[in-house]
């Protein structure tokens, strides 16, 4: 008997039959290599630290970082809340803006020639150098950081939305045209749902950049946050605390990133199946 999964190994064409077996054990087995890999990495890292292969002021071992986390729990936690809020707001503002600009680009050629260079410019300009402007325009504090965060994560969402919109099946558009759907209806019923895979790819990248944005923003001007804490710890040459803060940033980043991913899977999920559906059906 042939194995249908041979059609296309990474994405089985007819997984339907095997599905029940899959969810439990198989899923666990799938993440096993990752657990082993990262586990081994952690152990190696700890050994490297214990045996002094890497000096702890350059790269402290996991146990030292854990100690520092325990010691600085309160400040890490409160700074995490600050940074998390900045990331979230910045991401929301940035994605919305990126999305809206993408609409401008998509629906208007003149706007496209206006928006693209401006956005590319803002994207490539080192934000640190623009810090004074940010402070003047957005004020000292969270709003500046949110602005930087939004600016930094806007672009991938913009580009991917445009690519998604441009890739929409023209047949569907003709269908909508033939029933005299207005622009908003085409947008709502076709463009938006059809572009969700690309938009979410943009949101994933954007979210990862929002984390960077918030930290950079805090480097430039802040009263609190994990980026701020990194600066402070660094000036004290407390590398363990620097890494403790990095652990928290990464945790926040991963949480948000995989949150966006999950949301995407939930919204696009049914489609992913469709895409792997059989030809004639």
């Amino acid at each position, binding site marked *: 008997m042939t194995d249908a999964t041979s059609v296309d190994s990474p994405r089985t064409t007819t997984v339907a039959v095997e599905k029940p077996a899959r969810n439990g054990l198989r899923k666990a087995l799938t993440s096993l290599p990752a657990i082993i890999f990262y586990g081994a990495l952690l152990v190696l890292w700890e050994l490297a630290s214990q045996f002094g292969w890497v000096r*702890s*002021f350059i790269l402290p071992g996991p146990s030292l970082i854990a100690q520092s986390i325990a010691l600085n729990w309160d400040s890490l936690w409160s700074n995490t809340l600050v940074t998390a809020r900045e990331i979230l707001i910045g991401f929301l503002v940035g994605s919305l803006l990126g999305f809206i600009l993408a609409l401008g680009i998509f629906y208007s050629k003149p706007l496209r020639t206006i928006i693209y260079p401006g956005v590319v410019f803002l994207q490539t300009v080192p934000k640190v150098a623009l810090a004074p402007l*940010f*402070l003047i325009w957005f*004020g000292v504090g969270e709003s500046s950081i949110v602005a930087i965060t939004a600016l930094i994560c806007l672009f991938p969402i913009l580009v991917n939305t445009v690519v998604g919109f441009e890739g929409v099946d023209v047949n569907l558009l003709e269908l909508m045209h033939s029933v005299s759907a207005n622009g908003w209806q085409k947008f709502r019923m076709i463009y938006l749902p059809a572009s969700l895979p690309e938009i979410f790819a943009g949101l994933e990248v954007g979210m990862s950049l929002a984390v960077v944005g918030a930290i950079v923003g805090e480097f430039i*001007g802040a009263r609190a946050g994990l980026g701020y804490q990194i*600066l402070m710890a660094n000036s*004290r040459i407390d590398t363990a605390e620097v890494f403790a803060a990095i652990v928290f940033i990464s945790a926040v980043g991963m949480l948000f990133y995989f949150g966006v991913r999950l949301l995407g899977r939930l919204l696009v999920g049914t489609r992913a199946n469709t895409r792997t559906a059989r030809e004639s059906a």
Partner: protein
Amino acid sequence: LGGCAASSDEPGGSEGEGGLDLVTLRHSWVPDQITLPYAAAKALGFYEEEGIQLVDQPGNGGATSVQLVANGEVMFGTGEASHVISAQTKGIELVSVMQQYQEQPNAVITMKDSGIEDWDDLRGKSIGGAVASSGHLATLAALQLKGIDESEIDFVNLSPGAQFAALSEGQVDAAGTFLGNLAALDLKDEVNILTVADAGYIAPSTSLFTTPELIEKNPDLVERFVRATVKGLRAALEDPKGTSEAMAGMYANVNAESLQATFEMDSRFLVNDFTDENGLGMHNADAWEQQVEMLTELGELTGDVDLSKAFTNDFVEKTDKADRSFPQK
């Protein structure tokens, strides 16, 4: 790991070109007034005279210098004395072998029209500054000496570029900055300057440090390097214009005039009563003690400090007195 390979290089064992001893140095910052003594020594052949070839690299803060020197990536580094002290409490043994800045070159500046003219006026105001820099600690120390509690001030972390903008646009009431950074600012005439030194805080700032291992293995090299550098420092003080011009020819994007201006502005922190008495480059034990006391009081230090291990005047003292004497004007 690269780290292992690099640290296995025997410190002081490398040879440079033409039989010269290779010395590697990580600066605390991009080429600026702190770099000038090294550039002067290089330009005037002091290193060569000592049989040394200097290979230096720009930096991004004293903390990185500390880490790279301690890990054996480079032989020497420059950074704040407070970095050396902090490092010690983290078990990182480094020794300052030359004191470049005798005093903290920091100030709190306010707009003249703000009416803030004295430290006392700062109560309840906001100060923007790089909170992670030595300058911030110096500001805190000065406030403490003036009897102002940290909680009475609203500190905002602002990168150097952002401080003056925030100040002039009224986003903050005051800015904590390196005084030298003011040299080129066209805001100079519109601001009040409150230096931490005038507030009574005399603490060492930028130092030249290395590892105890290098000192033990190759004290001669350290001595020669320090001697040449001290001579460079003296040369820079003697001829800021000439050395600045020489340095401008050695590094990209160095502007001789503004370099000279900032260096001259900082000179008062390099040369003071202590150097009049002891010469350039010498460590002022009192100043180091005051700094440790203050850092402890501010809760910046997590362990005990043994100052006898943090700096040594042994090498500067081996430099001819004449080579390190430069009287205050």
